[in-house]
Structure formats: structure tokens, C-alpha cells
């Protein structure tokens, strides 16, 4: 059978794969993470202590959730620049509803709905208005953070809630609840992307929109869906953010935007769309968090952290050029 003849190299020798630069490109984030862990552990043995691992995982939770949302958008060859300010708006919506005394459940709902609506808006304008994703989400980035300032009058709302506190401090062993939530989101996202029709249509839309259309896929609907997913996940991130800092602040959170894109790039997802994974960006997010955490442990000045993140991201982007 000709089938086997062509398929055989795919199961081929590991040594051959290790010489293949494409293999390294595909797993850049994992390799980077392992290297970082070895280096930091060698320089400071507390790096891999249970306490530090637990705090890194909690710190990674929000970034993982945002990166998953960003992955869906980038896999359709778009980008969601508004993701962090959408989270800010969600947090502010949470704070407003909470301060009205409407309780935790409604506050969470408010965060999800407010952020989800920004996502829907992004999707509708991108899909129906046929305007570049970059411009649309740049606009909603500004609009959402403006709205957050207007709604909150620029003031943070302190939230003291036992359940929220439990969310940010409790957990299963070294896995804090917020990390558990992020892990569940990642698993569901993986199933959605690789085991449903929607996931295939999403990759087709990103890979070749014209071909997808010719096969009867509504690329507009896919676009609206991915931005909605991104918005809803930003809302979930907002809840975790409020739980973590104990307040709903209209702060900009720009670092979350940059890091979400960085995690996706580190994770080997093509910015041109059409291919990607969920595990890649999750590892990318962990890598970024480990990098910052390790530098802090080593007593490197905070000022060097963005520089280090920038270098890692550019290196990863260079590696992705060798992707098959």
C-alpha cells in the first residue's frame, strides 16, 4: 500500500526528529520552559519548592485563560487587542454590581456578560463590517477601557467576599482553584478546537477563508464566535482578577494583552491563522510566568523583566519561521 510508504516517516526515528528544526519550532515553548526551570533551579533551589510552584500556577491562571481566548482569535488569522481592557471592563462591571449589593453570582454574571458583549461587538464589526481585526480591536481596546473609567468614575471598588477569597487562596494541593479553573478551560478549549465541527471550521476559516466559504462554511459566523469566546474568557479572567487583588479596578492591564499574544506566539500558533494548539499557548503562558518569577527570585530588578520577556518572544517568533 502506498499509504504506509508515505506515512512511515511520521512514526520515524526520534533521532531524525531531533535534527529537524521544525520539530524544535513546534515545541519551542516546552523546550524553553524546561531550560528555564533547569537554569532557575540551579541558581536558586527554592524555585521548584511546592510553595513557589503553587504561586506560579495561580499567577498563571488569568494569563492561561486569556491566552486560550487569544488562541481562538489568532487561529482565524485575527487578533484581539482589546482582550485586556475587556477584562478590565468585566472587572468594573463586577465591582459595580457587587457594590449595589446584588451578590456574588450576579456580579460574576455581570462580568461575563459585559466582557462577552464587547466580544460580540468585535466579532460583528470584523465579520460584517469587513474591517481589519487589528483596527477594530484597537478601537474597542480604547472604548472598553474608557467605559471602565466612566462606569467606575476612575475609582476602585474594594471587594471583601469569603467565597472569592477562597477562590484565590484555596485549592487542591498545590493547584489553586484559579489554576484548576484555567486548566478546565484549557481542556474544554482543546476539545472544542480538535473534536468538534466548529473547531475544524475555525481552522479552515483561518487557513483559507475563501476555500472554507466555497465549502459552505459561514466564515462570518466563525469570526463572531471566536471573538465572543475571547470576550467571555476575558470576563472569566476578570472574576479571577478581582478575586486575586480583592478589588475591582479600572486599571489598564496592558501587560496581559502583550503577554497573551506572546504566549500564543510562544505556543507555536501561526499568526497567519489556520494552525495552532491549546497546549502550546498554555505552556507559553507558564513559560512567561516562570521567567518573571525566576528573575524575581534571583533578585533581578523588575525593570529587566519586560526586556527578558521581549527577547524570549522574539526568539520564539524567529523559531516559528522553521515550522513545517
Amino acid at each position, binding site marked *: 500500500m502506498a*499509504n504506509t510508504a508515505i506515512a512511515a516517516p511520521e512514526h520515524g526515528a526520534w533521532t531524525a526528529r531531533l535534527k529537524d528544526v521544525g520539530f524544535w519550532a513546534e515545541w519551542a515553548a516546552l523546550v524553553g520552559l524546561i531550560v528555564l526551570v533547569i537554569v532557575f533551579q540551579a541558581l536558586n533551589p527554592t524555585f521548584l519548592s511546592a510553595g513557589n510552584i503553587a504561586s506560579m500556577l495561580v499567577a498563571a491562571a488569568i494569563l492561561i485563560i486569556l491566552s486560550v481566548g487569544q488562541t481562538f482569535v489568532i487561529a482565524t488569522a485575527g487578533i484581539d487587542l482589546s482582550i485586556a481592557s475587556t477584562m478590565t471592563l468585566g472587572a468594573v462591571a463586577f465591582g459595580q454590581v457587587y457594590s449595589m449589593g446584588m451578590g456574588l453570582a450576579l456580579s460574576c454574571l455581570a462580568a461575563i456578560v459585559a466582557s462577552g458583549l464587547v466580544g460580540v461587538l468585535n466579532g460583528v464589526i470584523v465579520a460584517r463590517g469587513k474591517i481589519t481585526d487589528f483596527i477594530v480591536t484597537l478601537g474597542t481596546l480604547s472604548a472598553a477601557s474608557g467605559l471602565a473609567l466612566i462606569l467606575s468614575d476612575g475609582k476602585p471598588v474594594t471587594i471583601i467576599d469569603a467565597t472569592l477569597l477562597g477562590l484565590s487562596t484555596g485549592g487542591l494541593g498545590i493547584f489553586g482553584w484559579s489554576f484548576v479553573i484555567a486548566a478546565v478551560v484549557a481542556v474544554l478549549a482543546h476539545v472544542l478546537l480538535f473534536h*468538534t465541527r466548529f473547531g475544524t471550521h475555525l481552522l479552515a476559516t483561518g487557513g483559507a477563508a475563501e476555500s*472554507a466559504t*466555497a465549502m459552505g462554511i459561514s466564515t462570518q459566523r466563525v469570526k463572531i464566535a471566536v471573538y465572543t469566546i475571547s470576550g467571555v474568557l476575558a470576563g472569566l479572567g476578570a472574576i479571577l482578577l478581582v478575586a486575586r487583588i480583592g478589588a475591582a479596578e479600572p486599571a489598564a492591564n496592558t501587560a496581559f494583552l502583550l503577554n497573551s499574544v506572546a504566549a500564543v506566539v510562544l505556543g507555536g500558533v501561526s499568526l497567519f491563522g489556520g494552525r495552532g494548539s491549546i497546549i502550546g499557548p498554555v505552556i507559553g503562558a507558564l513559560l512567561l510566568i516562570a521567567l518573571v518569577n525566576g528573575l524575581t527570585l534571583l533578585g533581578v530588578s523588575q525593570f529587566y523583566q519586560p526586556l527578558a520577556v521581549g527577547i524570549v518572544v522574539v526568539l520564539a517568533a524567529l523559531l516559528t519561521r522553521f515550522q513545517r
Partner: protein
Amino acid sequence: MTNTLLECRNVSLSFGNVRALADVSLSLRQGEITALVGDNGAGKSTLVRCVSGIHRPDNGHIIFDGEETDFHSPDEARKAGIETVHQNLALVEDLTVWQNLFLNRELVRGFGPIAFLDRRAMQARAREMVSTLAVNVPAVKSRVRRLSGGQRQAVAICRAAGFSSRLVIMDEPTAALGVQETARVEELILRLRDEGHTVLLISHNFAQVMKLSDHVWVMRAGRCVGGRRTSETSGEEIVSLVTGAVSQ
């Protein structure tokens, strides 16, 4: 007796100043292979794209199976039973062969409202679909990006032929194929007809057209300039219709 499966009546379509189709009228008989020929830019692919729901004509009517159609999307055309091998093949390079074969026709196993892809069933079925056609069978799990031009064309043809559709449209299906593969595709086209499908074949290969088709339509500069029963015409006559040396 044969009846008409597809009829285009005065179909017109302009892209800005370019009049790609001007009052095109032609018809396809049920269960026949109909060829559509014409020089580059004559409007053949544009007509195909109207019939398969990608473009909507500015004017005119498309009647499929006795009913006037107004496809708003290719999905509606596919659901009505029209499968197309587009000239650009409409494949997604980053997806695998089997994913492309089942694009928007995925097999799922449902649990209530949640349905998961039945990958194994699709891969198995994909192997069957591909093996009927290609001489050099591409592994169904490989990405289309890694396939040769001819292999890609084979995948697109298998996809169009694989779903039991009423009408199969092939826009230059053998353009990139080797001698053996071309012969296989020609066999496939004949087999599709024998199984009762109607085929619309666009080709620049006049020998192929004369060999396979029951009827030939000729387009020139956005117009349909004539049609002949293949048995009652000759290659020379078709060529002169294409070039405009003879009218009607």
C-alpha cells in the same frame, strides 16, 4: 427521454466595470456529461461560481431540478445536491486530506446537543474515497500543504465525487494531472454518469471534451455563443466557435 437538471437563463454578473457574464443561457440534461469550453477569461469559472452559490448573479435565473434557485451561500447549493471542484480547488492547506474531504460534511457522534468528530470513521472513509482515484495515493493523514499539485487536484475531485450529489461540476479537473491520473479521472467522470449523476465539465482539452461529453456549450467574452450535441459536431467546429470564426 432526458429532462433538464440545470438551466441558466440570461444570467449576468459584473465585477465593477468587468462584465464577466452577459445574458448566459444554457442547460444541462439529467444524467449527461455536459462540457463548457471557452478561452481564458471567457467567464466559465464565474458561471460555475454562480451555480455553486459563491456569487449571486446580478440578473437572470438559475433553475435546478425544476425549481428556481437563489443560493445565498455555497452551503445551500451543496445541500441542494451540487458539488463542485473549483479551479482553485478550494482546499485548506493546513488541514489534512481527510479533514478537507469532509470539510463542512464532518461525521459526528452525538451526545444530545454535543457532537464530537468521528475521526476514525472519516479517516477510514477518506482512504476509500482517495483510493478509487489516485494512482499515487496520498496518506489521508498528511496535510494538503505537503501534497503535489496533482495529488491536491485528486483530493478535490474525490471530495466532489464522494458525496452522492445530483450535479458534479468540475472546473478544469485534469489541468495538473499526469497521463495515468487523467485517464482515471476520465474513467471517474464516465462512472459518475453511469451511476446517474449529471456532470458539468470545464476543460481546455478538446480531445477530452469530444471523448467524454454528450453536449458542449461554448462561451466567449462572457457570453454563451452556442451549443452542440457532441455527436453532431467536430473539434474544428468547436474551435471555430471558441475563437469566434463562426457564430451560432
